[in-house]
């Protein structure tokens, strides 16, 4: 596919912490700790990481959904939209309002609960899209119906309540809601978890199709590496609030340069597996009290003294490929015999 190298999103030195005070004890959780990343127009960028790695908080900042106790402590999140640049980490609510849905939209996790249970789908479409689209009455209706047809949804769904639709239909409705205004940047937060495998594949294809058709950029978040293999152009791995490696999907799978990535890739099931995959020992670090040095060192098979003391910087290790590891040269792909199921060539 063609790729324009124009940048749509620049995140620089972003730090976002949870600051809480409960029963006299104050706590600070460093959910996003110094992340720098850029995303290009017309690409699908995958973000991976285990639960409580800070990827959800990162996404909240990207989506301009920063609400106490989460606070941006440092850094910028700058979008280059067609109506001008905007730093959503520091913009006023009114400024953010001008880009919401028309330029920046969001597919939320959990299709079961993102639709108002007592509102008909058509009414929800009006609430979400009427203002950004600037259409009314029949013109609006026509636009929505056409868009739904593209998602293979009959116009009847507009008169239905969420509980009357199947899980897959509901997910397609939420994708429809997020894309009906043809946004430039779509954040998709685990859109396929809790769907069964067949529907999952369909939904992934749909997101991919819509993205190519509309020429939007998509940030795709999931802990499931096989999903990334299917949809992402580039993948970034988040561990304990930090970006630890980033690169083109193929490189990430065949030549990972961070032991954590190597482990994630190796734990994918492959056709012809006879043995159980080795599990990573230990637990993800507590973000209220992260370990010194490289945060992965307590679980890292390659850890040396330096890793325990000094934080590794991001190093460029190949075209488009960066990693934060002192020993990236020694990282071997744990399994490199066959390609993981479904990696796109």
């Amino acid at each position: 596919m063609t790729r324009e190298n124009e940048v749509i999103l620049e995140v620089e030195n972003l730090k976002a912490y949870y600051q809480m005070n409960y029963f006299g004890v104050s706590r600070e959780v460093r959910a996003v700790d110094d992340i720098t990343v850029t995303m290009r127009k017309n690409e699908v960028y995958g973000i991976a990481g285990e639960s409580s790695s800070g990827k959800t908080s990162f996404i909240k900042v990207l989506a301009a959904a920063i609400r106490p106790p989460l606070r941006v402590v440092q850094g910028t999140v700058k979008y280059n939209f067609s109506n001008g640049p905007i730093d959503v980490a520091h913009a006023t609510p009114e400024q953010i309002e001008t880009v919401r849905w028309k330029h920046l939209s969001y597919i939320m996790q959990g299709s079961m609960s993102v639709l108002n249970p007592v509102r008909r789908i058509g009414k929800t479409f009006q609430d979400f899209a009427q203002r950004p689209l600037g259409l009314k009455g029949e013109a609006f209706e026509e636009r929505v119906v056409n868009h739904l047809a593209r998602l293979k949804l009959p116009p009847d769904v507009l008169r239905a309540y969420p509980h009357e639709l199947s899980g897959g239909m509901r997910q397609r409705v939420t994708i429809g809601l997020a894309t009906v205004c043809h946004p430039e940047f779509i954040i998709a937060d685990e859109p396929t978890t809790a769907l069964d495998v067949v529907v999952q594949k369909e939904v992934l294809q749909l997101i991919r199709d819509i993205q190519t058709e509309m020429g939007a950029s998509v940030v795709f978040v999931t802990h499931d590496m096989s999903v990334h293999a299917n949809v992402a152009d580039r993948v970034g791995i988040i561990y304990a609030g930090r970006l630890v490696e980033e690169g083109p999907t193929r490189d990430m799978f065949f030549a990972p340069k961070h032991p954590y990535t190597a482990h994630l890739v190796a734990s994918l099931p492959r056709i012809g597996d006879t043995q159980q995959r080795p599990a990573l020992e230990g637990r993800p670090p507590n973000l209220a009290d992260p370990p010194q040095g490289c945060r992965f060192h307590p679980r890292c098979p390659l850890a040396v003294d330096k890793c325990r003391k000094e934080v590794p910087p991001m190093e460029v290790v190949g075209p488009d490929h960066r990693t934060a590891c002192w020993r990236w040269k020694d990282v071997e792909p744990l399994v490199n015999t066959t390609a993981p199921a479904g990696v796109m060539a």
Partner: protein
Amino acid sequence: MFSIFRDLVRYNVEFAIGLVLVGIMVVFAGLSFFSPIDPSLIYMTIPDQPPSAQFWFGTNSRGQDMFWQLSAAFKNSLQFGITVAVLSRIISITVGLAAGYIGGWVDRVLMFVNDIFVAVPIFPILVLFYFVLRNHMDSFTMALILACFGWPFDARLIRSVALGLKHREFTRHAVFAGMSTRKVLLEEHLPYVMPIVFATFMNNMLWSIGMEVTLAVLGFTNINNPTIGTVLYWANSHSAMVVGVWWWLVIPVILIVITFLGLFLLAMSMNEYIDPRSRLRRMGA
């Protein structure tokens, strides 16, 4: 349980205030055990004396020292409230746990009965009881009647908790380990239900004392037994406000407000403690 109380006193203003208010009233009511005079006797002192160093709360037109009169009245009313609360707790825990745990047709039948009790207006029934029993209606009979009507809301609440507990892992473990149903209910589930029972206990006291006040003010109880309600009844029947014996009414009303606010604050802050989502809200704010 004790540590919950300690935390609540330390960090929850409402709970602390409620505890102080209720504490004051309990001490005040407890003084009646040392009362120098029998509160049911009349014309023991000079009538209609305003509050003074000698008569702190004044005296009423029936020649009673209001301090000791009210102390006895609050003791009786609190006792009454506790009796009703204990009795109706027994019913609501039994019904709630049984309905939630056994389920099936037992649940359906119990909840059907429950809904009927919710829908019957209790006040006319109470008046009817007084009407046919007249002087046979002592405060224990009334406590029994109120207890029979005071359980359905809380039974429903406990049932929903029990339903949740039933599907939790530890219940299945207990059942696999061969624990009897009775034992699972008493030893595994009751501790979870207890905080709710305490919170509803306070609410139930509020309700039953309120009912007693209402009935007594109308003269529909044993009016010679000093309670919060009968004090007001006698004040009204002597037209205390009109003849200027204002302390006969104002002081009891203030004390009633203190009692009810105190109990209410205790119940509400306990409720908030039980519902973790409202705790999260505190945290966010």
